[in-house]
């Protein structure tokens, strides 16, 4: 599309004008809807970022407490238990479940932690001594992991929302700065072309009317001339007629008392 006005390649007809108007209306509705969606998402996004900030700080504290309790275990057991724990890990007791949350048409996953019953890989850990500390440490760490899971779901929501907001904003801007101006330009173009056609048509009609008028005037003049000629002729005749009547006045009265000489019987 060359030229200053960026518009769509359409023929300037009334039909395409209607189409363009419908398109403009659609674009405006879509724009306002998308804008609202973007606003709702941004609101949610800000809330999530705030919560992430808080959760990260909380995580720092929780992990500190958890490390401390692990140190307690090491002290109580009186040796390093990490090797034993690493070797005895078999099946996860702490698992995740994902559920979804719908924010203005965007599905945000949320992790949820749950503990499976009845499998304990570390039954023997701390059997000799420090069992109580081990138990406490496990509980502390379980709480820490719960906090981590919560943070992870916030973070996932953050990443997804970030992406979706970018896409939505891009669409809003595309509609606002490309589609709507272009459609408006097209409508303007079609209108100007239609006006031009209208003017042309009007001029043509005027021309035709003028020509017709001229023709009728000529015809009228002719007719008038003819009629006048006729009237003149009629007048002439009328002037002649009385003499003719005089000439033919004979057969009027047969019973008149005029003597008819030719009657033989």
């Amino acid at each position, binding site marked *: 599309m060359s030229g200053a006005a960026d518009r769509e390649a359409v023929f300037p007809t009334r039909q395409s004008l209607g189409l363009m108007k419908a398109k403009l209306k659609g674009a405006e509705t879509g724009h306002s809807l998308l804008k609202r969606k973007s606003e709702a998402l941004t609101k949610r996004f800000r809330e999530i970022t705030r919560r992430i900030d808080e959760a990260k700080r909380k995580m720092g504290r929780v992990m500190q407490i958890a490390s401390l309790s692990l140190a307690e275990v090491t002290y109580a057991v009186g040796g390093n238990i990490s090797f034993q724990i690493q070797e005895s*890990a078999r099946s996860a007791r702490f698992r995740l479940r994902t559920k979804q949350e719908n924010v203005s048409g965007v599905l945000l996953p949320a992790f949820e932690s749950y503990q499976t019953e009845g499998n304990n890989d570390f039954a023997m850990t701390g059997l000799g001594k420090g069992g109580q500390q081990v138990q406490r440490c496990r509980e502390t760490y379980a709480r820490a992991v719960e906090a981590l899971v919560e943070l992870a779901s916030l973070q996932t929501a953050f990443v997804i929302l970030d992406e979706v907001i970018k896409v939505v904003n891009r669409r809003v801007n595309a509609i606002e700065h490309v589609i709507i101006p272009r459609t408006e330009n097209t409508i303007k173009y079609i209108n100007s072309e239609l006006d031009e056609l209208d003017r042309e048509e009007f001029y043509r009609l005027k021309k035709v009317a003028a020509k017709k008028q001229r023709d009728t005037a000529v015809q009228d003049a002719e007719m008038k001339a003819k009629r006048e000629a006729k009237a003149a002729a009629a007048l002439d005749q009328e002037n002649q007629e009385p003499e003719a009547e005089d000439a033919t006045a004979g057969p009027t009265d047969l019973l008149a008392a005029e003597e008819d000489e030719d009657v033989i019987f």
Partner: protein
Amino acid sequence: MASQADYKDRQFLAVIGDEDSVTGLLLAGIGHVTAPPDSQKNFLVVDGKTDNATIEEAFERFTTERKDVGIVLINQHVADRIRHRVDTYTAAFPTVLEIPSKDHPYDPEKDSVLRRVRRLFGE
């Protein structure tokens, strides 16, 4: 966008970290070893002798290869060693979470997600 099938069966956590962090998290019960033939662990202990290639490989395995890992926990000082990989990782699943370790206090400035948060708010 992540599809539903993408995260439906992600039910494990994975951890890359120093000995203490891994031990603690395993005690909480996140450890899982897959069935014997390949018996993959979902945790990696990093110490001074572990080289970066190993960490990177484990990170790669947890984030892209395994489809049952929902969250990857990684110690911040370990994440620092493969920072370029962590920073370029932007997928939603699995979530990569940087956690503090006992010897290295937590620094929010280094966290890839928190940095994005800060950048978005223009701080």
